[in-house]
């Protein structure tokens, strides 16, 4: 029983890293994705083609490869070191290592690319009449987007966005590849020490967390049900 308690604590520690990675990635990639979607729809052609090229590369190569590139290549080329937290607090300093931040960067740009395509689809699916109504009512372009289009777009993109968000929960396990101390990292350490069950136990963490995420997504969808689009 004592061992189970220790395993649980270790996995919880790893899980908290995974959750940090998940939440911070969402916070960064959602706005970045929206910006990228504007880029891919821009009327300024160089920006449009550049944005599309970036999206193609980010979607067209493995996330794992992108993690390696972002973590190792800047150091090899320019001697750049990813920063890390040094608060003196052991938990924070191991969790928010330079590896963590490299991973966060890789996840954020990769997911932003996927999100940008979802946002683009969402924005382009809003009928032209909504823009025209705003125009005729003297609204500025920015206000038409913020006050009229955005929420309708959000409603439309929640189901495809939800798919990506659920995938992200599981993709945080890829951070293990550069030894970020997340959930899979901890489970693997226990496995190396001869304990098999923590790997299944870790699976339950992901599963339950995703159940929670799915529930939240469904609730959000229900809350927006009054918008008929």
């Amino acid at each position, binding site marked *: 029983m004592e061992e189970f308690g220790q395993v649980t604590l270790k996995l919880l520690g790893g899980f908290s890293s995974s959750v940090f990675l998940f939440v911070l990635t969402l916070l960064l990639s959602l706005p970045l994705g929206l910006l990228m979607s504007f880029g891919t729809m821009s009327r300024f052609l160089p920006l449009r083609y550049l944005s599309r090229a970036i999206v193609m590369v980010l979607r067209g190569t493995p996330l794992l490869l992108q993690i390696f590139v972002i973590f190792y290549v800047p150091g090899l080329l320019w001697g750049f070191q990813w920063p890390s937290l040094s608060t003196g607090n052991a938990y924070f300093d191991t969790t928010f290592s330079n590896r963590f931040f490299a991973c966060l960067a890789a996840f954020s740009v990769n997911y932003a690319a996927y999100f940008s395509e979802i946002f683009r689809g969402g924005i382009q699916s809003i*009928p032209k*009449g*909504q823009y*025209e*109504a705003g*125009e*005729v*009512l*003297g*609204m*500025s372009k920015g*206000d038409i987007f913020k*006050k*009229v289009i955005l*929420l*309708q777009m959000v*409603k439309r993109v929640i189901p495809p966005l939800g798919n990506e968000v659920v995938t992200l929960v599981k993709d945080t396990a890829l951070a293990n590849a550069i030894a970020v101390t997340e959930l899979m990292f901890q489970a693997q350490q226990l496995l190396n020490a001869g304990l098999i069950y923590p790997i299944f136990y870790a699976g339950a963490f992901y599963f339950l967390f995703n159940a929670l995420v799915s529930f939240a997504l469904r609730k959000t969808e229900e809350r927006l049900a*009054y*918008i*008929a*689009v």
Partner: protein
Amino acid sequence: MPYLEVKNIQKSFDGEKILDDVSFSLEEGETLAIIGRSGCGKTTLLRCLNYLESIDTGEVYLKGEKILDASYSKKRKKEDSFRRHFGLVFQSFNLFPQYTAKENILLPLSLQRKYRQKSGIMVDENSNLDEVVLGLLAKVGLEEKKDLYPSQLSGGQQQRVAIARAMALSPDVLCFDEPTSALDPELTGEVLKVIRELKEKTRLSMILVTHEMAFAHDVSDKILFMKGGKAIELGAPEEVFASKKEETIAFLSGYRHSNPSE
């Protein structure tokens, strides 16, 4: 000097002439009905007046002041953003689905106030926008529906909210683009009734693109019949309906037998 004067408007899309030298004028408080087959350019004409399309040649004057010509650019539009000369009621309502009836009307009003304040234009802080909105909803008979979302309203009610919204910024001329074409026949009556009441109770100048011939005949002061982008006939309803012109007779005869009265 007429209240609204539209002079020699031309508009082509991909080399095809959609508006071919269209001119008309309107006195304050008058209603002009524009009739003609689908594709005759009547909707494009309304879209041009509402700055949704540019024009190739021609001019539009309101109270003697030029408000639209071919040089009218997006840049100039920005400067003019709080001078809405026209209001437009769309065929497909285009209400904002995430806002209640009241909020749909309030949004342009509050934004307009914001823009004015930003540009240093004096704003009457005491004027209560909520009251303005309720007044507008009362004009279309929908005060009690103020807190419902568009999805909770019938098509006819949605269009009535859209009419109230189009009046929110007190346009000089209110335009209707086939306001009942997207409605089930049993719902057209309530919308036509609202338009008729506006005509009778206010001094609003209106341009009405419609397929409702009986209604156009009853409610308008002038009728413009268009065909192939050209203004074929312009005159009082009795004149146009009694016209001897071949094209007008051919067009109207299509309606005589199935007179779509409201």
